[in-house]
């Protein structure tokens, strides 16, 4: 399970970084979103991976999973959700004002990576 998690986080981060470095707003937003997915999974894994363990104290439990990363992930998800909404609105505004979806406002196709 650890290897699977690591691979997923790694792949998501790689795609995220690649898309963020593209010079158009849509891939940029997608890239930022994928990176925030990667970091959410990463935060989740910082409490160590375990299956079927309770997060709260009960008399019958044989072990516990750390509840704090779950709270952190929840906060991070809410914040990244708001940020994604904001950056989409900003991209639309940029498209309206600059007349192009290139992040520097270049209209020349040759300058676009």
């Amino acid at each position: 399970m650890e290897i699977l998690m690591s691979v997923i986080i790694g792949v998501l981060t790689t795609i995220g970084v690649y898309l963020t470095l593209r010079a158009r707003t849509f891939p940029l937003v997608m890239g930022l979103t994928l990176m925030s997915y990667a970091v959410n999974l990463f935060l989740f894994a910082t409490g160590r991976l375990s299956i079927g363990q309770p997060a709260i104290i009960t008399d019958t439990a044989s072990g516990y999973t750390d509840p704090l990363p779950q709270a952190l992930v929840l906060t991070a998800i809410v914040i990244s959700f708001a940020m994604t909404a904001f950056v989409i609105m900003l991209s639309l505004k940029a498209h309206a004002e600059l007349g192009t979806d290139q992040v520097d406002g270049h209209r020349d196709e040759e300058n676009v990576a």
Partner: protein
Amino acid sequence: MSHLLILPLVLPLLAGTLLLLTRRWLSLDVRRAMNLTATLAQVALAILVLIQVDSGEILVYALGNWPAPYGIVLVGDRLAAWMLLVTSALSSFALLYAIQGTDRGSRHFHPLFQLQLFGLNGAFLTGDLFNLFVFFEVLLLASYGLLLHRGGAERTRAGLHFVALNLVGSTLFLFAAGTLYGTLGTLNLADMAVKVAETPTENLGLVRVGGLLLFGVFALKAAVAPLHLWLPATYAATSAPVAALFAIMTKVGVYCLLRIGTLVFGTDAGPVAGLYADWLLPLALATLILATLGTLAATGLRRQIGYLVLVSVGLLLTALALGSPDATAAGLYYLAHTTFATAAFFLLADLIANGRGSHADRLTPGPVIPAAGLIGGLFFVVALLVAGLPPLSGFVGKLLVLRATLETPIWPGLMAIILISSLLGIIALARSGSLLFLRAEGECSTEPSARPSASRIAPIMGLMGLCLALTIWADPILRFVTETAEQLLRPGYYIQAVLAPDAGRAPS
């Protein structure tokens, strides 16, 4: 437990919410008065906190009365109080300028202004790493709104870059916080400082990675080279009072570098002690050099001031990187001075651009500015302040930094870089001044809107007055910042105040 420490957070949050709810049915004048009252009240609160902590006491406020390290704590020490005071004083004058007309066009300016202060105050007061992340997001989200206030193509383009960079920065912050939590098992800064010293050898690499990731995030906020490229364009594109308020934004990064660098990776951190100090000095000097070249190359006044902000960041971090009490104290004194001076410069640049018609702030010979004598005089004083020439606070700050470098063996190199950068800064400012004022030709604009009004000059004078106050009362202020530096460099007091609040008050 005194509730004083939570007030700098509750007040702007409530004021911001109230301004948001009433934005449609209260007149602009009433909302301006509300915002100004809330901002001035924060100055009073900052002074109250400062008086409380001046004795050396570290105030700790456990949110929800959950004891540290399980709950989130707010910690008020001398550094936090100093930052609160600088922020609130700066924001008062930025707001005074903004209500001269910048706040028209969007009803959200006033709520965002208070939420920006909420985020800033929170970042300075919190004693928890994840909470610091949350306050970073609050202040960033508010700053995105303020930056884009009134729109325009140039502003939107700069805003898009600023937002994208900071979102990547936030992701890195979360990776760093996750790594540190995964290895240290805590997010409370004081508890982290204890745990980090006991890190088993196999986890040392991970702690270093987490710490340096955090360093990268703070360096991005502080605009340290090579992560500084966003700053001049962003600050040049936004409206003047927002640029003035943003003078504190780079200082948030500097504050975090100082706080984490002295507390978590400070002298008591065992194997990872001085993790930040090794990186800070070369990067600070690189910032200083690149930013100085930028001031010479800039073709617009506001962009030039953006580079001057970077110069100040470089000098500030050079002082803090030296790590001695004297150097840290010099840095803290210079921090307040440079925040006020660059903010005044941004406001003044707006007046100059306003009087030059289509030439705006471009550094080309343009028409004579209305009331050129007064504006030119102000430009001269602000340039003295920013360049660090006698007799004002810039000189005191720079002299203190230079004196502090004498303690290190590499002082000739440091002094050479700082002094040459100062000289080049003076040349750049002299060139701008002569282009804007002495080589002006043609008819002075007769439009009434181009004339600087007294109410726009007053906030600039106010910020200069703060610099003057820093000069006149340099002695008590220096005593305070020296004590602040000593408190910072002995993280034991902070740790004891947070983790063992009943074990007796630490002397200072």
